[in-house]
Structures are given as structure tokens and as C-alpha cells.
């Protein structure tokens, strides 16, 4: 299948999905902040927890953005190879810890950044081998 070259416009939208993804997870985390460390032992406690979280405006914003990102991502994938799109989008593995530090005041140790680096390399390696399979099929 013919796919366009990675243009500046496509790159912009791919990076945009990174930022959207980060924002979505920040929203999800924010929606659970009031329930931090909640202990759930039975189904009614689970129900109360879900009711509280699902009534948070942050969760609604997050869910709307999930749908939006899904549509954006699907239309991007019809123009860019997965082996190009996934490595660019795994940039969110760095953006999310950064956003956690800035907006949620979490502490990320050097050790954890090391782990993030390994994950990032792994994701890039996993997605790069997609193109080989594509080439083999052509």
C-alpha cells in the first residue's frame, strides 16, 4: 500500500497525539486524586469509588480526548507506517514522567529514568521490526 512520506504536517499531528496522550493520563490521574490510597474490600466500595471517579469533570475531559485521539490516530495510520508512527508516539513515555513532575509534583528518580530509557528503546525496537515484515510481504 502506498504511504506518503513523513511531512512536517504529519509529524506535527503525531507529536500532537503524544501531547494529547499525556494530557489524557494527567486528567485520569487528576480524577483519582480525591480517592488517593482508597482501600476497596467489597463490591459496594468499588461502586462508590467508580461513582466518585466517573463523576469527576477531569475524567469526562479525558474520555472525550480519548475518542478524539483515537480518530486522529486512525486517520494518521492510513498515511504513515506503524514503524514510523509508534516510535514518534512513544515519546509520551518521556512526556508523562515530565508532566508528572511538573503538574503532579511526583518524584522521578534517576533509576526510574533509566527504566524509561529501556522501555523506550524496547518500544522502538518492537515497532521498527514492523517495517521488515511489511517489506517481506511486498
Amino acid at each position, binding site marked *: 500500500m502506498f504511504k506518503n512520506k513523513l511531512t512536517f504536517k504529519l509529524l506535527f499531528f503525531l507529536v500532537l497525539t503524544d501531547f494529547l496522550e499525556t494530557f489524557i493520563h494527567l486528567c485520569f*490521574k487528576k480524577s483519582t486524586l480525591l480517592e488517593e490510597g482508597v482501600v476497596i474490600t467489597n463490591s459496594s466500595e468499588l461502586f462508590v469509588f467508580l461513582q466518585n471517579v466517573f463523576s469527576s469533570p477531569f475524567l469526562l475531559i479525558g474520555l472525550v480526548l480519548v475518542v478524539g485521539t483515537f480518530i486522529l490516530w486512525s486517520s494518521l495510520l492510513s498515511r504513515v507506517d506503524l514503524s514510523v508512527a509508534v516510535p514518534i508516539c512513544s515519546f509520551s513515555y518521556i512526556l508523562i514522567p515530565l508532566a508528572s513532575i511538573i503538574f503532579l509534583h511526583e518524584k522521578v528518580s534517576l533509576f526510574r529514568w533509566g527504566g524509561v530509557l529501556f522501555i523506550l528503546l524496547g518500544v522502538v525496537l518492537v515497532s521498527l521490526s514492523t517495517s521488515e515484515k511489511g517489506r517481506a510481504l511486498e
Partner: protein
Amino acid sequence: MREKLVFILFLIALTSICDTINQLFLKSAINSLIPPRGNVRAVLRFIIKLIAVPRVWLSFLFSLISLCIWLFVLSQVDLSFAFSADSMHYIFIALASRFILKERVSLKRWMGIALIVVGIALVSLS
């Protein structure tokens, strides 16, 4: 403390498994239709057609379960930890592709998965 970490990692694995099942249903539903070409409008039309496929609703059900577990995980641990550990869905997807869809998984990809495992271990130990 250690027991809690194991429990949280188990829950993250559970959301990843739910996500994998969700992807498998979605993939099989998408494969049953003609793929869209070009613009956002074509994609939207495709999504409307997709919603009529029953398997897609199973996929939605699993993503809802996954979301509920994910929200509980986020109420317990840091986002930076949870999101990094969530990368284990790459492992489950590779396993599912290999053993359920019978796809061939290249050596390079297994190496990538090994790196992800090391990364998750590092993130969890910190």
C-alpha cells in the same frame, strides 16, 4: 510495601491483558471491513460502520473494564510509575500475536520485548 507493589503490578498486567483482548477483537472486526482511505471523513464513516459489528462492543466492554482497573491503579500509585509499567501490554500483544493469531514474531521484536521487561523491572525497583 512489597506485597502492594506486586498487587499493583498484577492489576496493571490485568489492564494490559484486557487491552490486548480489546485489541484482538478490534483487529478482527476491522479485518472484516474494507479499510478507509485518506481523510478524516472517510475514517469517521469507517468508524460508524465498525460500530455495527458486534465484536466491537465486546472490545468496548474490555476497554471499560481496563479503564476501571486503571483508575484504581492511578488512585494508588504515581502516574509516572503506572504509565511506564503499562508498557507491558507490548509483551502481551506479542504473545497473543504469536500464539493466538499465529503471527511470526521476529528476533528483533523479542529483543525489544526483553528491553521493555528490563525497563519495567528498573522502574518498579525504584
